[in-house]
């Protein structure tokens, strides 16, 4: 059991100051639904932590804004807020869906999208839609600023490339007007379930043909990614069950190509094919 100091800044500047001052000894608290569990379990990756920085009162980090081209989500926006936001429901429905399937009402009321991403779990539910949206993280430290695609901060299970003094200040993505989206999650029960697998899909149809498509399978790669081979295969073609089955197979082939045959592959291969195929069907609004 660690002795921890609790810090609660009211502004981003103060927060960044504290991150700078205690770099290497401080952990941001962005809802705590993972952090508190890990502290209770004496997680090795938190052994160095002496300060907990509660970001819940930093207004700059909360809320959802819509501009002509970009949607910006503050990292401290809760899953409940994301899943009920009219902006997200209209412009990125699959993200709202993913947020609505996180944990339980209590976890969704406390947990935030920033925390979901920065915790580094490949099973994070909002991760797949963010990667499909080509979302970017705006990252700041006291003296520097950078923007990185969401998928690039992942180093593997539980590890992200954030520096010891850095905070995510926003998650941004370009609007995808005219796309339809879908998110499907497979867990062992209907609530409080960690994704066994999931799939996020965004698709744009023009004249009955697929003009653009993004496919992000969740929990299948070491780090989250879209599957370009499967996407390319669909471009310019008319949606059909047969076509989407092929896309599902391309995704599972890619999974095996990247991670090899593992103990779970026997199960994951047919299941991710089903999820991808169904998500594509749903996005294309074809009855299965």
């Amino acid at each position: 059991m660690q002795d921890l100091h609790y810090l609660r800044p009211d502004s981003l500047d103060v927060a960044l100051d504290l991150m700078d001052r205690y770099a290497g000894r401080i952990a941001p608290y962005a809802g705590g639904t993972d952090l508190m569990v890990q502290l209770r379990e004496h997680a090795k990756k938190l052994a160095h932590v002496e300060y907990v920085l509660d970001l819940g009162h930093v207004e700059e980090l909360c809320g959802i804004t819509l501009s002509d081209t970009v949607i910006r989500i503050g990292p401290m926006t809760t899953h409940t807020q994301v899943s009920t936001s009219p902006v997200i429901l209209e412009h990125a429905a699959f993200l709202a869906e993913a947020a609505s399937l996180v944990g339980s009402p209590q976890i969704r009321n406390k947990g935030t999208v920033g925390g979901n991403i920065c915790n580094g779990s490949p099973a994070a539910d909002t991760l797949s839609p963010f990667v499909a949206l080509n979302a970017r993280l705006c990252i700041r430290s006291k003296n520097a600023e950078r923007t990185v695609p969401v998928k690039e901060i992942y180093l593997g299970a539980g590890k992200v490339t954030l520096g010891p003094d850095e905070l995510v200040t926003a998650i941004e993505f370009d609007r995808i007007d005219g796309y339809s989206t879908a998110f499907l999650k497979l867990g062992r029960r209907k609530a409080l379930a960690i994704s066994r697998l999931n799939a996020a899909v965004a698709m744009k149809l023009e004249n009955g043909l697929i003009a653009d498509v993004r496919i992000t399978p969740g929990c299948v790669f070491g780090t989250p990614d879209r599957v370009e081979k499967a996407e390319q295969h669909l471009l310019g073609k008319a949606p059909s069950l047969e076509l989407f089955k092929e896309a599902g197979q391309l995704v599972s082939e890619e999974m095996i190509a990247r991670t090899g045959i593992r103990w779970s592959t026997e199960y994951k291969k047919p299941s991710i094919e089903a999820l991808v195929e169904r998500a594509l069907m749903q996005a294309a609004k074809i009855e299965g």
Partner: protein
Amino acid sequence: MPLYGEKQSRFNTINRSKPRLDGFDKVTGRARFGADFHLPGMLYGGVLRSGRSSARVVKIDTSKALAIPGVWAVLTAKDLDKPVAWSWFCYMTDQVRYAGDVVAIIAAESKELIWRAQQAIEVEYEDLPGVYTLEEALAEGAPVIHEKHPKNIMEDSRYSIRKGDVEEGFRKADVILEREYVTQYAEHAYIEPEAVIAYEDPLDGVMTVIAPVQNPFFTRNYIADALGVKIADVRFRQATVGGSFGGKEESTGLTVGRAAMLARATGRPVKMVLSREDSMLQSAKRHPFKLRYRAGVTKDGKIVAWEGTQIDNSGAYNCQTQFMNPRANTHSAGAYDIDNISTDTYGVYTNNIFSGAFRGYSSPQLLFGQEQFIDELAEAIGMDEVEFRRINCLKDGGRNATGSVLNNVILQEVMDYTVEQTDYQKKRALYKAQTDTEKRRGIGMAISHRGCGLGAESPDASAAMIIAQMDGSVIINSGLAEVGQGLKTAFAQIAAETLGIPYEEIRFPNTDTHNIQDSGITAASRGTVMGSQSMKRAAEKLNLIMRQNAIELHMFANPNDIAGANGIPVEQIQGLPFTAEMLTIQDGFVFHPDYPAYRIPFSIVCKASKWTGKQMSCMEWFIPESCIQDHATGQGTAFPNYAYCCVIAEVEVDLRTGYVDVKNVTASHDVGTAINPSLISGQIYGGIVMGQGYGVTEEVEISKGRVRNQNFDEYIIPTALDMPEMQVNIFECDAGEGTYGSKSIGEPATEAVAAAIANAVYNATGKRVRENPASLERVLLGKALR
């Protein structure tokens, strides 16, 4: 027939959905659970577990832990005269047999200091070879876990059925089928982890422990045993229980013993509250069974031979396997009337967590195998499985595996009603013909019979006490405990019914071992059916005593008053002797049934009794007629009576992911007399969901003896969103053996659910899941992945 209903009831208080006696306290938050108690000067207690499955402690050094300020005691097995508890578990040990074994206990000022002390204790182990599966334990030359059992077979848990001539039966058979089914470790998952507080009572210095348990007296024995003092010198008081389901027995007893040791060592109250992880590591699990059945059937659908081997994995210690296996033995051929049966049941030691009592006490495991096997047998001879069950199921005057004749058997009525209500046969055929490759529906059934109470396992005896107060209120007390099942309510209803006073006048304090005779464990669904017999008896006696008091107090001595009140000429009753036997007590009034308008309030009789020094209380004891079964053949009477049930489950299976969605469950139960229909429905709803978890998602994953899933993120119980639509049918029938004709419901409520789900999954997919539970991987691939 389905529930008679209040209007047709011949009773005044029972047969009605009275509000729970403890309901108000629970919904307002006043009820005090084990963890709610805080005492001045209290310390926290903790344990250091080995974390190893088979090892010897070579050296243990506690000096660094003891040097931490605020750590007041660290004890190891060496500090105890007797580290082995009276029930053959170890309070502490230097011979580690499973990962939850405790090598040291700690008392400190805070939970944080407990953790620091745990880190500071230095232990050197020598790892020893272990055995974890039945196959490993039974292999030639396998490491031996207990010297007394050199082959790792627990010989005192071996039971058999030898009925008829099974070889002759097989010769008559047209079809012979053999199948194996396997069940998993399962956790009770009560919402409240174990919590105990031990203190010396300031009034008399008696070591007292408060905790939520199922057996207050059993638990008290641990206190006396741990301290090496007389039983009369220690005391146990029952806290409100946050769920138990069979799990708050031995392992809570061990915790109580440890807390008492620490309280004595430090001279201060000690509170021990297990974390969820600790609870998962320490508390008994449902026995995994390997079930092998072979049966012979004739073309016209009669089962003529039934053979079985039922082996249970008992883990590192004998936690009730030898008490549970008699039940598994009696029920080893299901709810069927078969002439030729030969089965063997025995437990095997492994270096896993120990298995113990868990709602059903072997029946959920057995039924998972048997009821699938019945479906498979019916299919093998091309017969509808409902018809097959009709032909073979127990009927009035039939004999189960024990050979004893059963009466008032309403199993077929219960089954036929449920089959019709759910449109089972039509759906079964429809679903079988599905061709959809994405998702399919399935429907499945299971039936059961269950011996009520302890039967031949051990004496089903209990004490009850009833004391009337001068204002007409009544305190009752029983040797059995409220564990959340509604025992207080049922007992209060029975006392009120028998004594003839309103239910609202009854109070029932929590069990205190100083106040009543040891009545054994509150388990085996025995509380209402058998345990309340002594309550009924005590209330009957007090009823007579109070009528007698009324007569002796001249309350029926004035014919003018009686005649006047009833509007009849006094001559009509003049000279009639009014005796206690003629009077009755009902709704809180004492009266002569022929002249009911003249009635004395029960409270007036009480008040007058008090001031004239009359008896106003009674203590009674009840033991049912002995059940005697031959050990070698299992023939004889195993239980006083049986409860019957039929469960039908409907599922939707995702054929491409293996996800089983339980859509609806219909459960029909024979309860004899429904003491409290609302509580019965509550038991059944809970039982359905518990059975659903067992059948679909729940599995304690054990790797080389270590429990891998230690919390509810990984041990998957159903949530509110997973629950199916539920239809409950309560059947009543005439059955004399239980109190007011009642039968068991706590365990019947859950036992057949997983089996019905497994049969439904087969209907949907055409593939049998013979290894419980029907998880994603098993349904999709036919096997678990690790």
